[in-house]
């Protein structure tokens, strides 16, 4: 092939390298499960290397390779999304024309597919390649897809996009195309809480997770907190301390200043003593993972996460629907099941609406003049 990186078939060696190098993400159990899905049971006494070797020697097709690459990826890197709200109704024809022009000017390794999903929804998929030559061949090339959606409502248009630099770059280009077509800069807003106090930032998250329409909060499993700048310890006042006392204080001060952010993992975290202690010390929430149950049939539990790309600044709101625990006669499936893109698209607006509503309420309470999100 003219371009070596475009080869599709993966050799046994390449598969072995991926499995062997993903020690943390592809455990012995994951390898045993992989074989089991083909109806093969290997001995649980086999070493990880033996299992990886056996699996790499099996015939693989496109889907099984995709599964292996998916497992070798950090699951926490599951693409989060973000959104931009344009305060104007833009016609699908205008969007189509702007996308057409964008598509014609796209680089050769990018493929743009755009289609109208319904009169008020327009979807632009940009397929692009990310290369990292430091990795084994199979991992060098990751085919990425920026799935950007325009949702047209009465007086606004929401652009929903993956929360990564490439998608932001594409969205910015499309936005400037729309500006040009309207011959004005269309006002855009994003969820930005940089103007809120640290307590209000925490409230933003706690209100978000507890007031989502159609969902009832069940659990909080991951929380990241950061120390507010006002609560960071002031510099040492040397003149007040002498000798050993001063040295001890300096050590303590150094130790304290190291703890700027903390990640908590567990269950019912917001009521845990550890979280309360951190909150009292002035730490505020910068990201959160929670489970909420549908208040209507089928009463499934959905797992979400939300946070900010720039946690300290409170900018770049991003969120995701991680998966689903199905309700089977009151019992929930033990493992989280992935949601289809269409199903996620149904849930995203709930997070977006709730985030905007919560932010507006907090601003009103704090008497901050801006409404909704940050004007761009």
């Amino acid at each position, binding site marked *: 092939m003219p371009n070596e990186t475009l080869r*599709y078939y993966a*050799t*046994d060696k390449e598969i072995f390298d991926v499995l062997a190098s993903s020690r943390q993400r592809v455990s012995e159990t994951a390898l045993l499960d992989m074989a089991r899905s083909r109806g093969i049971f290997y*001995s649980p006494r086999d070493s990880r290397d*033996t299992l990886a070797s056996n699996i790499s*020697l*099996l015939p693989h*097709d496109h889907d099984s390779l995709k599964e292996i690459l998916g497992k070798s990826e950090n699951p926490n890197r599951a693409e989060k999304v973000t959104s931009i709200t344009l305060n104007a109704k833009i016609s699908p024809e205008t969007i189509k024309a702007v996308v057409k022009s964008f598509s014609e000017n796209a680089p050769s390794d990018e493929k743009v597919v755009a289609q109208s999903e319904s009169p008020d929804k327009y979807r632009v998929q940009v397929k692009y390649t990310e290369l990292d030559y430091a990795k084994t061949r199979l991992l060098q090339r990751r085919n990425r897809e920026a799935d950007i959606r325009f949702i047209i409502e009465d007086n606004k248009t929401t652009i929903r996009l993956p929360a990564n630099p490439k998608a932001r770059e594409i969205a910015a280009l499309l936005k400037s195309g729309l500006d040009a077509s309207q011959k004005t800069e269309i006002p855009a807003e994003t969820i930005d809480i940089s103007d809120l106090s640290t307590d209000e930032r925490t409230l933003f998250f706690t209100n978000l997770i507890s007031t989502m329409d159609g969902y009832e909060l069940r659990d909080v499993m991951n929380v990241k907190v950061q120390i507010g700048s006002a609560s960071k310890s002031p510099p040492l006042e040397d003149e007040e301390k002498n000798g050993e006392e001063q040295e001890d204080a300096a050590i303590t001060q150094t130790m304290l200043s190291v703890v700027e952010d903390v990640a908590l993992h567990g269950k019912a975290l917001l009521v845990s003593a550890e979280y309360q202690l951190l909150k009292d010390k002035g730490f505020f929430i910068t990201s959160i993972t929670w489970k909420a149950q549908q208040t209507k049939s089928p009463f499934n539990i959905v797992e979400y996460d939300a946070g900010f790309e720039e946690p300290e600044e409170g900018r770049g709101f991003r969120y995701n629907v991680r998966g689903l625990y199905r309700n089977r006669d009151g019992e929930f499936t033990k493992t989280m099941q992935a949601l289809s893109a269409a199903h996620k698209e149904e849930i995203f607006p709930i997070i977006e609406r709730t985030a905007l509503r919560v932010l507006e309420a907090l601003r009103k309470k704090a008497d901050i003049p801006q409404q909704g999100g940050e004007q761009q």
Partner: protein
Amino acid sequence: MAETRNIAEMATLLSDDLFGEFLWQRTGPTDTNWPCEDPESHKVKTHPSDVVFFYDNPYSLTRTYVNCDLKSYASGTISKAKLTPAIESLARGLSCAEKSQEWQKRFIHDTVTPEICGLLFVYNHDNGYDKDFKVLMSDANPKIDDLPRNSKLFVLGPEDIFWLNNVRYEIVQMRGKGLIPAQEHCRFFYPNLVRRNNIQPEHARAATLEMLTGPWIVLSYFHPKTNRNGYVIFYRRIGDSVPEFLYFIDYLMYYQLLQSNTDVYIRTLETDLNAPAIFQRAVHEYTEQCENSEEIRERLKAITYAQMNDIHTQFSEIEIGMDNA
């Protein structure tokens, strides 16, 4: 007694028809029990072997012996509670077979290095096949700590048997039409891999369990009447996306299956309705990526792609209890 007779009949059916077409051979007696080597922990005096097959391995100088446990059930009667102990029992049997002089005396040839594996063959005798078996399998959580290191155990469920039975039938049909030659000119295809060479290219002719449970089965042949080589690839996937076929075409290219003077047939079963069109799109895209090479276009165009239309849903009506695990 009926059970014994049924097991014997099924063993014959498997060796003469199904696995026979995949070039497996039968060894030793059928429906036999042999002494357990670890009665204290296994809590049994004997282990069963319904039938034992063997084939030579392509990537090691060993011969695989497949110790089979044959089960069949009527629709709606199989459960996790029946499947789990059957797998566990087979795993315990395997751990003893590796140590048992008696088992080895009955089934193993003197001149080879054996690799013993287990096969739980579970079919649905009244309804062809049952797609819920996969769900059962993913829910079953057998304790197989007894399974010795480097051993493996395979489960072929109703859907697998439906697939294999249709592949077998297609081979017979193609042979009947003269498209492929007699069995002696056929073998299953094991290319040299990067980490393993095919070190028994003459002896390892049979389809291994790894191939039979994989995404495709590749039969290669030399047709003495036409003096042409050929491959028949039985493609098991759904065929609903271009990338799926691009990967498959790249496999054919990588192992140089697409040569002049070589016939290549692809046979599919119950794929997506649009699979043939999607395959053609993949051929087109692949050719484009090969700088529109005319030679590549010709070779890809020469592939005969067809669905297996004469579908056989019934493998056998023989009943063998699920309760003798």
